[in-house]
């Protein structure tokens, strides 16, 4: 057997002092299997050693939260004994190395997290970020990732209902692939990963264990260098067909009362799943590795414990339920093996060929794992740029609008979502391309809305404000479809925690997320941190992705953004201040990359959002859309395109320059469509709540009439918005 020393430990990604700590805790030198287990449990991906301290600041509770962070996924109450289980997770590193499999297994992994808790997945979402379109790798990575997400989700028969795609050169060497899943479960049938009871059988089900993905979690905890291609063998290979069988088999077993605890084998496979169950139950666990179903001959204990083969689950069963469980897994043609049992030793003990090959106290792996208070640098709020009217004088609104609507970060992403099955399960009532995706709760009048958002540019310019803004945007996207926001999941994608600036971005974004979610009563119930998103020394722009979930009590009251009826009135809620810095307009038209992001006023966010919900509740709203990237005119254009209708804008009473008025990215704003007869009632409610509003215009047949000189037909708007991605992918 391979000898273990400090050098071998370093090759496993451990730091010298961490290796010393292991020897101290064990009071001996670990063997190679034990070292492998420590390296898997103590890497950044599994141990959250750099982030734990800061994640504690996040609000995680509310009346609606059934389960916060710490389980496979978060759980919220949606009334009538129904609950939604949801989480977002990153699969960034594998997707850059092997885009199809990386993205596919990301989707597979997050769905497993959700059905492990007893929930049937009912919706998938994703947030994907690529390098600049000019980068020679971008096109193939995008194609591979989209095929991978579709390949897995489509086969599982779970609709992909919403997503977000962006391009930015900071992702040239490190793309982001974050996958999110929502599942539906009865409140009294939620399953957890906490083992309980002695001598309970530990069951392995699903696919066989192979050599794929060994050290995947360690790879995800390192930065990329020139040799990244050599890491291809550490990317797992997905089989959505097996996962579909595993889903059906697990849900069938869950109908009874056989299961004490269940945990999917995700990052660090059998190692983390067995240790987590034992740790939560304050128990020991012993496993006979000869009983683990293996795909390849002569696998060593080290390989079996560290494999990240997909589509596997570990279950602690009630005594005497083995035969019943086996029958179900046989029916679905899945492997089933009793591989061990719970013990009172509080150690994880592994046996192979009748010899003990590892014996580690569980608490040394979990509670005693390293935790760092990394140094970090506070970001200064950048100075505002002073734009003068002359800067805008040469610009024609129509030209600017054309450039913005066809910008790669604003243009229609239909090429992507048309490759995802978004209608299977027969409950999708708002497809991708809206503010949120919406699915009905099957067989009820309720619906669940979900959206995923990130604003890396704002976070990069000022992390604290950016963190707040992403939460606010998620909240607005839910409200725009008529959903009451309940909770969020976050995927925190950052550079190296060992770099003070990157660590500062993390700390302050988390601070911003925390402030906004506290104020909006929009707690964080699950999530994931992905550090080391960098190539050589250059980190990505800080990209926290927020997945928000909300409830629509009567799905017939769902709102969409398409303009509905000619002669209806269009209003804007929220005040336009003309904040141009960090707007898409500033960056693409003026080529101005500096300045602060728009300020987030949480009072206004809450008040404006809740007032819109009140209007929706009273049936006054015919369409609604929040204003985000690209500003007011971009939002209006999208409502025109979707509804195939135009609008005649009234002359603004605002004194600012038209360009600032139309393209600034002030927060807390929505556009709403109402019937003319309802105007006085709507105004009454807005005034009662002290909400700033303006009348924007009236819906007309087929033209966007900006002023007397500037008119754009809906067909022109469509051609600006719909062609870029299609053309790019076929060029």
């Amino acid at each position, binding site marked *: 057997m391979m000898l273990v020393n400090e050098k071998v430990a370093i090759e496993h990604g451990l730091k010298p002092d961490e290796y010393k700590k292991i020897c101290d805790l064990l009071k001996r030198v670990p063997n190679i299997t034990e070292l492998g287990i420590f390296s898997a449990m103590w890497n950044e991906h599994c141990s959250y050693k750099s982030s734990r301290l800061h994640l504690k600041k996040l609000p995680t509770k509310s009346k609606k939260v059934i389960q916060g962070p710490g389980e496979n996924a978060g759980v919220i109450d949606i009334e009538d004994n129904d609950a939604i289980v949801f989480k977002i997770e990153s699969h960034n590193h594998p997707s850059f190395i092997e885009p199809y499999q990386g993205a596919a297994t990301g989707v597979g992994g997050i769905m497993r997290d959700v059905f492990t808790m007893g929930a049937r997945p009912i919706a998938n979402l994703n947030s994907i970020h690529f390098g600049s379109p000019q980068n020679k790798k971008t096109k193939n990575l995008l194609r591979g990732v989209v*095929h991978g997400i*579709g*390949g897995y989700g*489509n*086969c*599982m*028969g779970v609709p992909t209902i919403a997503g977000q795609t962006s391009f930015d050169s900071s992702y040239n060497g490190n793309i982001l692939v974050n996958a999110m899943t929502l599942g539906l479960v009865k409140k009294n049938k939620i399953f957890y990963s906490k083992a309980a009871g002695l001598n309970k059988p530990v069951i392995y089900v699903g696919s066989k264990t192979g050599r794929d993905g060994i050290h995947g979690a360690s790879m995800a905890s390192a930065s990329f260098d020139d040799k990244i291609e050599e890491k291809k063998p550490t990317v797992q290979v997905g*089989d*959505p*067909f*097996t996962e*579909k*069988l595993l889903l059906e088999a697990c849900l069938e077993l869950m109908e009874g009362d056989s299961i004490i605890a269940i945990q999917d084998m995700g990052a660090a496979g059998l190692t983390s799943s067995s240790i987590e169950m034992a740790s939560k139950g304050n128990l020991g666990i012993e496993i006979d590795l000869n009983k683990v179903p293996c795909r390849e001959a002569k696998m060593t204990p080290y390989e079996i414990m560290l494999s990240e083969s997909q589509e596997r689950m570990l279950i602690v069963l009630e005594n005497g339920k083995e035969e019943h469980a086996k029958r179900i897994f046989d029916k*679905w*043609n899945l492997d089933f093996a009793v591989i061990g049992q719970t013990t009172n030793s509080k150690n994880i003990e592994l046996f192979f060929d009748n010899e003990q090959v590892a014996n580690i106290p569980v608490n040394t792996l979990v509670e005693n794992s390293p935790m760092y208070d990394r140094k970090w640098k506070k970001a200064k709020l950048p100075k505002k740029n002073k734009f003068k009217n002359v800067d805008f004088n040469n610009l024609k609104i129509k030209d600017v609008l054309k450039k913005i609507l066809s910008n790669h970060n604003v243009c229609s992403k239909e090429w992507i*979502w*048309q*490759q*995802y*099955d*978004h*209608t*299977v*399960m*027969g*409950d*999708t*009532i708002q*497809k991708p391309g809206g503010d949120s995706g919406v699915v*009905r709760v099957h067989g009820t009048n309720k619906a669940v809305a979900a959206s995923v958002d990130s604003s890396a540019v704002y976070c990069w310019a000022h992390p604290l404000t950016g963190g707040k803004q992403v939460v606010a945007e998620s909240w607005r996207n839910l409200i725009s479809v008529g959903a009451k926001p309940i909770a969020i999941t976050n995927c925190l994608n950052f550079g190296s925690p060992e770099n003070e600036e990157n660590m500062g971005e993390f700390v302050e974004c988390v601070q911003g997320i925390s402030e906004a979610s506290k104020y909006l009563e929009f707690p964080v119930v699950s999530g994931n941190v992905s550090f080391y998103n960098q190539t050589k020394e250059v980190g990505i722009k800080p990209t926290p992705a927020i997945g928000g979930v909300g409830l629509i009590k009567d*799905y*017939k009251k*769902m709102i969409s953004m398409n303009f509905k009826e000619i002669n209806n009135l269009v209003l804007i809620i929220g005040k336009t201040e003309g904040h141009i810095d960090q707007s898409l307009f500033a960056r693409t038209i003026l080529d101005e990359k500096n300045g602060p992001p728009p300020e987030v006023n949480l009072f206004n966010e809450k008040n404006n959002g809740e007032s819109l919900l009140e209007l929706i509740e009273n049936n006054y709203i015919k369409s609604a859309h929040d204003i985000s990237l690209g500003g007011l005119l971009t939002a209006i254009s999208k409502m025109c395109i979707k509804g195939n209708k135009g609008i005649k804008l009234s002359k603004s009473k605002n004194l600012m320059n038209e360009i600032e008025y139309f393209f600034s990215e002030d927060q807390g704003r929505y556009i709403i469509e109402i019937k003319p007869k309802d105007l006085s009632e709507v105004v009454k409610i807005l005034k009662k709540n002290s909400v700033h509003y303006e009348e924007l215009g009236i819906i007309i047949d087929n033209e966007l009439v900006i002023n007397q000189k500037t008119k754009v037909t809906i067909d022109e708007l469509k051609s600006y918005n719909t062609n870029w991605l299609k053309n790019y992918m076929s060029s």
Partner: protein
Amino acid sequence: MKSSVITFPGSNCDRDMDVALSKFGFKNKMVWHDDNELPKSDLVVLPGGFSYGDYLRCGSMASKSKIMQSVINFAKSGGLVMGICNGFQILVETGLVPGVLLRNKYLEFICKNVYVKVVNKQNPYFKNLDKDILELHIAHNEGNYFCTDDQLKEINENNQIAIYYCDEKGHTEEQHNPNGSLKNIAGIFNKEKNVLGMMPHPERMIDQSLSGEDGSIFFKNLINNLK
């Protein structure tokens, strides 16, 4: 009216089909692929999905599963068998309907609403349908219908083409063809017209809140024809 929906390992539109059939008055039963006998049925449906993970060839493994022998016997004795999407792929693999389904022309999965033109109403599926053009939904990777010239000749002689991809006005030009399918074929019958295979999913269009309601028209008409 009694219907049966077969569940294969990897089927994922079986529940949706059950919901649709029940909504329009069928007494539906779910049948497991490993069973030997079909329950007494007026209609058997092979649902969409990825039976056996689409491994080997879409539909090929499912076409050999235990229950399929009784489905084939049922079809040969004149019973109504309808295959949707993956169900269509299974039907071509059994030889109950002619041709094959290739990978989509642009090599991408397509999920969107399409229009189809109903060209043959002399059969239990479309008889009495008061519309000629239906808006339905497709979601597939292998819907590119193909057959040999001889087969096409025979298909035409026997009026076996059920529906074509078209635009909302019924034009069936190349640009209304989403997947490269031969002659815009979206669905096809056996010679006797009791077996129908089609790529579009009527079960996803049965409610105003979903993508549309033309699926409702199809199912209502179907059950009335069977009464």
